[in-house]
């Protein structure tokens, strides 16, 4: 363990190597490390943002879905109401038509029966008159007793 000038050589080499490292080794490696750290931080931030975006999109989607369901329900309600109304109207109309038909039939029937009655009455009156004529051929003058016959006719 003798001391000699090697010491100074080593001292010089020490500084040269340290200078070299400072100049050419340290900065690129630190730069790469810092850049990678930045990249990772950015990546994590992007992932976070994507997560919130996803949550937002999900909320919006469920909103849309709910709205669609509501409007569908509304449509269905409207349609049902309309159908019920149509049925109601149809029913009312059919009732009306039936009533009108019945009324018409009744009127017709009444008129027919009236006519038949009139005809019958005429017929009976004629028959009565004819009968009476036959019976009372001589005694009863048709012209004289026309008033009586008319009264009889109206009573039938």
């Amino acid at each position, binding site marked *: *363990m*003798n*001391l*000699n*000038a*090697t*010491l*100074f*050589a*080593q*001292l010089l*080499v*020490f*500084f040269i*190597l*340290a200078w*070299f*490292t*400072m100049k*050419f*080794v*340290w*900065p*690129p*490696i*630190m*730069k*790469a*490390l810092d*850049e*990678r750290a*930045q*990249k990772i931080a950015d990546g994590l931030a992007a992932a976070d943002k994507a997560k919130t975006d996803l949550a937002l999109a999900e909320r919006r989607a469920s909103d849309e879905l709910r709205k669609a369901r509501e409007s569908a329900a509304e449509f269905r309600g409207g349609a049902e109401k309309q159908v019920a109304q149509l049925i109601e109207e149809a029913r009312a109309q059919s009732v009306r038509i039936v009533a009108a038909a019945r009324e018409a039939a009744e009127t017709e029937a009444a008129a027919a029966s009236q006519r038949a009655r009139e005809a019958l009455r005429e017929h009976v009156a004629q028959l009565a008159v004819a009968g009476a004529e036959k019976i009372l051929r001589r005694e009863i003058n048709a012209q004289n007793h026309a008033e009586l016959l008319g009264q009889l006719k109206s009573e039938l």
Partner: protein
Amino acid sequence: MSSGTEHAPTAGEYIGHHLTHLTSTGHKQTAVIDWSVINLDTVFWSLAMGFLGLFLLMRAARSATSGVPGRFQAAVEILVEMVETQSKAIVHGDRSFIAPVALTVFMWVLFMNAMDFLPVDLLPNIATWIAVQFFGADPHHVYQRVVPTADLNGTLGMSIGVLLLCLYYNIKIKGLGGWIHELFTAPFGSHPLLYPINFAMQMIEFAAKTVSHGMRLFGNMYAGELVFMLIALLGSTATIAGFLGHVVVGSIWAIFHILIVVLQAFIFMMLTLVYIGQAHEAH
């Protein structure tokens, strides 16, 4: 055994040979401190490991993208992230130079320590072969130590570099006046009688920090290297027991040494950050 060129080296010679640096003078340094000598092997291997470490880091830095990283890039990123986290926790202030220093120190010390994993005779033998083959050298005088952190010059060189950084940041953060004021008033307080004591304490603190910083790494790696050599001596007995001992103990020590290599590199980096961090804290 200066004349022993015929027989195999004794254990002492073997270890001594392995612990001798390839110096610029060509022979073993005798004085404890001799500034005219330079350990060529330490300089070469620490440069090689520094360039290898920086080359790998550089490759990762070149191809670094913010996209999905490959395995190599991810490994380097883990390392860089670790250094960045530690430096951020320890140093409060501008870290644009300090954090790269910590990364450099960790990579460099790790690679230099890892040279200990190579077989103790592999690189020295290759060096001997080259020296004998191409330079006609005497193989007994070709020395090669391949773990730069097991050389006190290597570790103290780095710890003195850290000391210089501490001084620089002390002045930069507190201003020259503020720092000198702190040298005389901390840690015991501002009183004329305490000035010399404070100053002495501060000087001792700086010296102790730097010396212990370098010595800790040196001691660990030197001891590790020495143990590897002793284990290699077991195998060199060329007996069955020696061979088995070499394999078993060598494996155990190498596995344990993985921990030491990484731990010492980490400790050296952490202390670098702590000392520079202290320069940022006002007392």
